[in-house]
């Protein structure tokens, strides 16, 4: 359904705004790489633009850190509707390996509504092009989400954390 909507909403060239919300640069390089002669995404009419005001699509790369959270939101608000958001890379999907660190709020969905995720660490340029082409309805979808039910968490990490929270004074300090 979204693919049909996109065909209607974005009939012409897509202009892309790239927003690094705290990435390690890996995904950002691959995003720039799709512009270069080997991958040349401009043949699909896509162009990287400097200002969110000019953009149709926002690419978010990296875990959203505490300081960038409000700025990412502001950048998203600055894009005129209709707009699409792509989360690029493992960190944008769920926060990556630092998803619960003290300065990281989590994946891109913690800051802005994300329409498409492109996995990888970093995702290959081909994967990025494929993801965008999928969104535009240029290619067929190859995989579908499956509902996974996890019966029990294999590590008792969360219980351990809970116990730590209960006895640690610092949480008490923060409450008031």
């Amino acid at each position, binding site marked *: 359904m979204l693919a049909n909507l996109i065909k209607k909403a974005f009939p012409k060239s897509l202009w892309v705004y790239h927003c690094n919300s705290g990435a390690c640069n890996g995904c950002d390089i691959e995003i720039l790489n799709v512009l270069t002669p080997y991958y040349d995404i401009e043949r699909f009419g896509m162009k990287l633009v400097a200002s969110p005001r000019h953009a149709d699509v926002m690419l978010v790369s*990296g875990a959203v850190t505490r300081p960038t959270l409000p700025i990412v939101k502001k950048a998203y608000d600055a894009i005129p509707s209709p707009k699409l958001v792509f989360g690029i890379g493992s960190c944008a999907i769920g926060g990556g390996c630092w998803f619960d660190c003290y300065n990281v709020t989590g994946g891109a969905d913690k800051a802005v509504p994300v329409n498409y995720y492109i996995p990888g660490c970093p995702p290959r340029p081909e994967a990025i092009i494929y993801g965008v082409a999928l969104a535009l309805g240029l290619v067929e979808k190859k995989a579908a989400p499956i509902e996974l039910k996890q019966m029990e968490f294999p590590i008792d990490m969360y219980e351990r954390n809970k116990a730590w929270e209960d006895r640690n004074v610092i949480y008490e300090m923060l409450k008031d």
Partner: protein
Amino acid sequence: MPGIEEIKNGLKKKFKDAVVAVEEQSPTRLFVDIKSAKVREISNGIIAMGARYLVSVGYDNISRDGTLGMIHTFGFDRDGIFLALRTSVPESKPVMDSITPDIPNAGWSEREYMDLLGMKFTAHPKPKRLILADDWPEGVHPLRKDIPWNLMPPAAEDVAYQLDECPEGCSIIPVGPYHPTLHEPAHFAVFVDGETIKGSDYRGFMTHRGIEKLCQTQLTYNEIPFVAERICGICGSVHAATYAQAVELAAGIRISRRAEYIRTIMLEIERIHSHLLWLGVAGHLIGFDTVFMQSWRIREPIMWLGERITGNRKTYGMIVIGGVRRDITPEIKEDILSVIGKVEEELLTVKKAIQGDSAIHRRTKGVGYVSTEDTMLWSLVGPVARARNVDIDVRRDFPYAAYDEMKFDVPVFDSNDVWATVLVRLLETFEAIKIIRQCLDKMPNDGPILTELEAPIPPLRHGLMAVEAPRGEAVHYVITGEENAPDRWRVRAPTYPNLQGVPLMLLGNQLADVPIIIGSIDPCFSCTDRMEIVDLRSGAAKTASQRELEELSRNKR
């Protein structure tokens, strides 16, 4: 030119009782324990002996003896000796002298530990928040061991960073946090009088993810190299190699020669890819997109080569403690030779085109001038320093891996501007190709690529390692700990000192040159910010927003 004995005796003679103990870990590593009261004096003494300041490491030692430790590290480039000046202050009164007034580059390190450990430094010239977010509560220091790694204090709305005082008659131009020329979030406030830059302030550390804390508390020794690679997506192998070598040094592990050669090859492949990447970005920043497209086109086969060797285009996952994970077979050897041969050929064309292009000359010559003395005073590193006539290169001065057997030139220029950094990086790419050829030629054909550890890594050993990353030297300091994990792991990426020199480079230049000057250090904020949080003291949850800055600048006018 002091040897290790002379340094030892010189310190003992000059500072007598203040030097508590001297430990000579190896002929190139000297650890000196001193009393905290004399730290500034002794640091100055070491600098006067011809050393260069590297980084400071603070650590939480409260559970052992109730102190907060502080280590200032120095390197004697001509003699290949690293010196670590260890001291500590009691947790109840964590105050020591700041060394920043004499060694300006220590400014960030000290501010870092004000935020993360709650230390205080008397006479620090700019004791502002550096790493933690603006809305992070006062008095909570995330690097202390009683703070869990996943602590999330609630966000506050009415906090923002106070920029430095704008000089009289100047206006503030905000650059960032999201700016077309910066591919990562960071905020520069540039103070301009007309078009001329009169000063600047920086509020970065927006990609601080808390990696050091995460690794110290949650991960074990051999998991960390993979996280270390994700400190920076461009020079990942460098961080993994530096970390692995620091642990090996601390624990006294010797790895096979073949593994060292493979490490060298991976580091040099990464250097080629990084320098070509920078060349493209630099071309883009001055509006010369042909350079961008061409150099990235040349670079792409290197990425494919990386994938064939390691399985991933970057973040190779090659280097672990004890060696490397994948071998270089004779087929891959042929492959590497043919790819770098092609790259060399094409790069030569680009080099000629760049050297003869008057537009690039006009945009870069004389821009970002810093005198050689200032470069040394601010301890700038890597191509930024070599372009300013400071002849330092860790690969040659403190050889690691297989660099002791390599023959290569270190390009140094004395025009002290952005143009020289372009040349340094171009020439270094050719040197990297040369080194890879020598490595493949001399590499021993047998020997394990991964050395098994015979015994557990002993606790509380110190290891200090520097590796020449494409951007300069990366310094890692490891204190080994119990339970198969380091007690403290400090990462100093090359952008960390270089970014502190940016205000110096900007001074007196035109506003239009800001992107290329910032770009000329090849900034990598994710490396720099690895363990810090950004926070602005008095603003909302982030650095001052663009609107706030605009209002600020309008009001000032």
